């Protein structure tokens, strides 16, 4: 079931939650809505679910306009950050709820419901908890039950609102791998909201990066990480070094470096910002080529399998570099040492608002 979102606008009082959002979600894809809090991602998800009404614009499921349809009729599965399990019902009754509230004519028999619920509980690997109550389960278990409950009604679309947001890091990592595998098994069109870029990168087929009610970029996790479309995406997705400079007819002058900026051929002596990922910073003792600047090593710290090096160039700009452990061993850097920094894959943007 594909979803077509067209020109959705939504305001809450003076606050512009969604500003003309259009987005296509193809059948069977797992799409992440990624952005900082307040960017409108949850509002968009709730509009898809029919829990909020857009001020204007339309939503279509598989070509059929559902903008005016009630949540009840949209056949969406919704998973909440805080699970929203029915607290006074057993796990079994929670999962069975969507089937037992159906009108008599379309309601499966008791035995069929039982079979279906147990199959779903097996799918989420929690069939042994059927008789328990939500408060007896851990957070991770609750969220898997919530997912089973949403899947019980065979939704056309699965919507997840920060599904792992309330869980601790370890469970969160396990659960998102598990969600990815589950999606590969059942292939229901899914949209999930997250502010965690790692989560979006790891789980989704496509990432939609949002900021202040607008879509900044739509792309595969690789595209979003390696070729961000806007400065915002650069900063939001992954760590980044940032250099101020000027751009003139396709060339950016950043410090002592001349960096090609073919996208900005029209600009004449305009202020610009250059972005470089820390792992795209090379450190050498000998100057290699034009695109290197002298710098001083300030600090070296180890983070897991990486070595992070803090440097400072001649203009006192801080530069962050990430080396592999073997790369760092090979270099044998010491704090206070003078080296050359050579940025690669530099992306230049015009400074916004100027």
């Amino acid at each position, binding site marked *: 079931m594909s979803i077509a979102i067209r020109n959705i606008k939504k305001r809450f009082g003076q606050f512009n939650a969604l500003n003309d959002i259009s987005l296509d979600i193809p059948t069977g894809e797992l799409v992440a809505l990624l952005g900082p809090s307040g960017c409108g991602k949850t509002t968009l998800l709730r509009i898809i679910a029919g829990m909020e009404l857009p001020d204007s614009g339309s939503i279509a499921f598989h070509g059929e306009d559902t903008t005016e349809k009630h949540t*009840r009729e*949209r056949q*969406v599965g919704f998973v909440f950050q805080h699970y929203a399990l029915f607290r006074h019902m057993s796990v079994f009754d929670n999962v069975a709820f969507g089937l037992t*509230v159906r009108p008599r004519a379309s309601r499966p028999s008791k035995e069929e419901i039982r079979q279906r619920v147990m199959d779903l509980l097996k799918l989420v690997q929690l069939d042994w908890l059927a008789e328990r109550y939500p408060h007896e389960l851990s957070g991770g278990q609750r969220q898997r039950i919530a997912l089973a409950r949403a899947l019980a009604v065979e939704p056309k679309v699965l919507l997840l609102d920060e599904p792992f947001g309330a869980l601790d890091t370890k469970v969160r990592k396990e659960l998102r791998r598990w969600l990815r595998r589950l999606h590969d098994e059942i292939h229901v069109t899914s949209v999930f909201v997250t502010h965690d870029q790692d989560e979006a990168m790891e789980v989704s087929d496509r990432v939609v990066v949002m900021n202040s009610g607008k879509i900044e970029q739509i792309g595969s996790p690789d595209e979003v990480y390696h070729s961000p479309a806007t400065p915002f995406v650069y900063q939001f997705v992954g760590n980044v070094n940032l250099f101020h400079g000027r751009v003139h007819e396709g060339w950016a002058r950043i410090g002592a470096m001349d960096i090609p900026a073919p996208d900005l051929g029209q600009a004449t002596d305009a202020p610009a910002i250059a972005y470089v990922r820390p792992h795209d910073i090379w450190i050498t003792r000998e100057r290699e080529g034009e695109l290197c600047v002298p710098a001083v090593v300030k600090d070296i710290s180890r983070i897991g399998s990486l070595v992070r090096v803090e440097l400072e160039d001649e203009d006192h700009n801080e530069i962050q570099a990430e080396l592999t452990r073997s790369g760092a061993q090979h270099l044998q850097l010491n704090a206070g040492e003078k080296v050359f920094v050579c940025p690669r894959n530099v992306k230049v943007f015009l400074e916004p608002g100027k």
Partner: protein
Amino acid sequence: MSNANVTAPIPRNIATREATWVRWLLIAITLVFLTAFLFVPLLSVFVEALRNGVDAYWEALKEPDALSAIKLTVLVAVIAVPLNLVFGLAAAWAIAKFEFRGKSLLITLIDLPFSVSPVIAGLVYVLLFGLQGWMGPWLAEHDIQLIFAVPGLVLATLFVTFPFIARELIPLMQEQGKEEEEAAVSLGASGWQTFWHVTLPNVKWGLLYGVILCNARAMGEFGAVSVVSGHIRGFTNTMPLHVEVLYNEYNFVAAFAVASLLALLALVTLIAKTWVEWHTQRERSAAH
């Protein structure tokens, strides 16, 4: 440093712990107050009621006017409490789960009976529905008597006990949020199914608590009822009013006998209230 310091149990909340004599003094003051203003009066009700023996006590309760007062009190409560139950649930559901214009006005209005003197509440109904009142002539024409009759008593009681259930449910429902309802609707449940299977079970203990308080007030209300009742013995006297009538006739044994029933009602209410509170707390600690 002595060993005692190491082995002595560390008192909790050491920062807010008062000196021993302060604690004993506070407890003593509380006990004196409770004894003087609660236990002694309560005891005296029963002592006075049984002054002439158990037989006299039963006689006083079996007397037709007393029986009629008891029946009337139960009747008024049986009508007023369910009505306020429906109203309280509806108001709390609307306020906690939906956003609409005039919501804060509605909350203020629900609280109104708490801030208005019950006597004034009764007077308002007399002014509205009494013979000299705005709607009096019309009502008289159609042979409907509200004031100095049972409907008036029910109206006044309804007004006074208006806020109890709604006030109990609103914070509870607000705390629970509306995610469970949203989940139910997304699973295809109708509004009624959502209410019946999700909302109502989640607030059942709060609701029961509200009903108990509402019932206690409905049966014990004096001021508002007194104004609209007209004190017709055997017809429009509820138990509290009957107690007053008997007392004014210097019929102390009978007055205290009926009063003892109200006192018993209070005790039962207290026990029921504690029981419900215990359940609510258990459920709450289970939910977290």
